[in-house]
């Protein structure tokens, strides 16, 4: 009975605790909350999307990482998951979806095509989504197995957990977005 109902809690961040109070920095508290409640926006265009479906399904169960709810509205999502070949014609649309997402936002490029164009080294295919939007984590594979996608998600969670609250206001970040022509 006990073992079946075991619930694992996330460890509390470093801080000072005494009777009736617990003090930590707001960055750590926010990072903890964000990393365990990411809302992904799936942008699945081909076979990597099928692997993503397997990742979401009960066998691999991405919901274990606080991603129970996929958001199909860019406004309400934190993590853009690009899975599949992006043609040059679709590049501006992908960038528009990224621009519509509210800060803070993260991007994961799943599979060889999203990361580099993959085997489609041709006139019509975007040679990696980092030509139109900044990417946080690349997951290699053609297509990657669900374990690899989960590994990418864990890497994203580490980034989210440790991100400084001021990063999105920094000149470096604004400069990065400016290189992609994003305000």
């Amino acid at each position, binding site marked *: 009975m006990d073992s079946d109902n075991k619930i694992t809690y996330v460890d509390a961040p470093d801080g000072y605790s005494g009777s009736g109070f617990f003090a930590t920095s707001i960055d750590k508290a926010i990072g903890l909350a964000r990393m365990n409640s990411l809302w992904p926006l799936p942008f699945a265009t081909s076979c990597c999307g099928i692997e993503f479906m397997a990742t979401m399904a009960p066998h691999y169960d991405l919901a274990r990482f606080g991603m129970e709810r996929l958001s199909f509205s860019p406004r309400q999502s934190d993590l853009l998951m690009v899975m599949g070949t992006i043609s*040059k*014609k679709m590049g501006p649309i992908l960038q528009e979806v990224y621009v519509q997402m509210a800060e803070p936002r993260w991007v994961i490029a799943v599979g060889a095509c999203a990361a*580099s*164009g993959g085997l489609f*080294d*041709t*006139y*019509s*295919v975007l*040679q990696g989504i980092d*030509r139109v939007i900044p990417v946080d984590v690349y997951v290699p594979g053609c297509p990657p197995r669900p374990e690899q996608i989960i590994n990418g998600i864990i890497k994203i969670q580490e980034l989210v957990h440790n991100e400084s609250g001021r990063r999105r206001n920094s000149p470096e970040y604004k400069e990065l977005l400016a290189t992609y022509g994003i305000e």
Partner: protein
Amino acid sequence: MFIINQEIVDLTSEKLRNRFGEDILADEMQMDMPVYTVKKEIIGELLRFLYDDETLKYCFLTTLCGIHYPESNQPFGVIYHLHSLENNQRIRIKTFTTLEDIAIPSATAVFAAANWMEREAYDFYGILFTGHPNLKRILNVEDMDYFPMRKEYPLEDGTREDKHDEFFGR
């Protein structure tokens, strides 16, 4: 492989010869269906003739595509596949032209389905279909300034930086 209805094939050849004479440049049987190579000027009239004929009834345009044979003296072509649904007989029509004279009459007046197929042939080969109502790119990005399926461009994307020659044995 398609079934060949020899009676209809013979009738088609005969009617085309009688109607268009020297404008039919070649008439041959290839594997599974007859192929007629014709002058490009008569293509609209020929499709209309085959469509309207009371026995032949080639009333279905299966496909239409462009082609580029760079070594040929008439390198650009358009190929039409027609299907007579009533006789269950298919034929191919081919027509060729040069880069300098790349305009080919549109088939949209006979087959509405030719609209998007001709746009595709324009998109990839730059074949100009005269009389087409809306000849613009259909699949590629609108601001593309070349015709990618012409056999004059490298196969690989020139913007890619991670492919080093040493890894590809060249």
